[in-house]
């Protein structure tokens, strides 16, 4: 009795993990196209992007493979040049949970794609839409107060911030004692 109930529980827990591990290297072209259909002002003057668009970002936030791709891009495209591994330098901090343009994925997506005043360059010509979504997903895990199970871990590099799976990030971020 107990064993079967336990097995069921474990099974369900694992089933939830299922989607997190899927590795989709190639989005179907129509989906990829749809994912680019994010407009700053959907009705021409103002307005919020449709919820469906935001929901598309979910696939990138809860999937371990996509998050690790986002992390790779963060490094490859030198985001730390301004944001210093999320701690903030000439660009704003990315791991304190405070987002200048709002914490929703669409805002983050737009910040990367179209750039923002005072120095954030647009990346629409450097990254594909899929990659921008991957980066968005990764950035959301940076400031999370509880770590997602799909979250990435530390890099094989100098240690400059706590691993992403150690949330809340800010709490564990102590300066290194000097020798």
């Amino acid at each position, binding site marked *: 009795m107990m064993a079967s109930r336990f097995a069921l529980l474990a099974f369900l827990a694992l089933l939830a993990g299922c989607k997190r591990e899927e590795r989709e290297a190639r989005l179907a072209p129509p989906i990829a196209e749809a994912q680019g259909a994010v407009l700053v002002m959907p009705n021409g003057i103002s307005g919020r992007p449709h919820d469906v668009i935001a929901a598309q970002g979910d696939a990138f936030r809860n999937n371990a493979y996509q998050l690790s791709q986002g992390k790779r891009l963060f490094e490859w495209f030198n985001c730390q040049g301004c944001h210093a591994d999320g701690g903030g330098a000439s660009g704003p901090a990315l791991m304190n949970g405070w987002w200048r343009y709002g914490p929703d994925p669409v805002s983050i997506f737009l910040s990367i794609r179209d750039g923002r005043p005072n120095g954030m360059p647009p990346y629409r010509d450097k990254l594909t839409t899929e990659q921008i979504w991957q980066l968005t997903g990764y950035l959301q895990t940076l400031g999370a107060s509880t770590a997602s199970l799909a979250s990435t871990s*530390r890099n094989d590099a100098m*240690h400059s911030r*706590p*691993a992403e799976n*150690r949330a809340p990030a800010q709490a*564990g971020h*102590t300066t*290194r*004692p000097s*020798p």
Partner: protein
Amino acid sequence: MKHRIVADLSGLPLHGAGSSSQTWWGTLAFMLIEGIGFVLALAVYLYLASIAPQWPLGAPPPDPWPGTIIAALLLLSAIPNWLVGRWAEAQDLRKVRIGLVIMSVAGILPLIVRIWEFPALNVSWDSNAYGSILWILLGLHTAHILTDVMDTLVLTAVMFTRHGDNKRRYGDAQDNALYWYFVVLTWLPIYLCIYGVPRL
């Protein structure tokens, strides 16, 4: 096949101590396994130290006081431990009870001091490899104190029940004492490694 009886073993004792006891051998085997675990952890420590440009890496040497206090407490606890072993051998229920209570306290004390020992390492487990191996060494040893204390507490509780006055329980008390020596002894090389090597 037909049997022919060649000996009557009715006269054999019903429980043996030391090398005639299975649990003694089991304890020994566990100590061997865990001892190898400790040796490997120490080997990893020395390996990392040998490839590092300087040691300790990016941190001041650990503050030695809590570790030294623990070493002293552990070494001192060897005395009541030895007594418990002897009393158990003599099957003296009252003294074994008292001894086990003392040993429970003697086990909990170093655990309390250990709360201050982790910060005294002056490095976090996720700062660098030096911090990682330090935390693992200390964590590994703490786990051993913890399990032995749990074992001692349960055994103490058993001793105060009707199951206490039994040769088997005295054997358990002896094996528990044997294991505590192991916990004390393993601390010494770890202590030397953690606090001595960075100061070489």
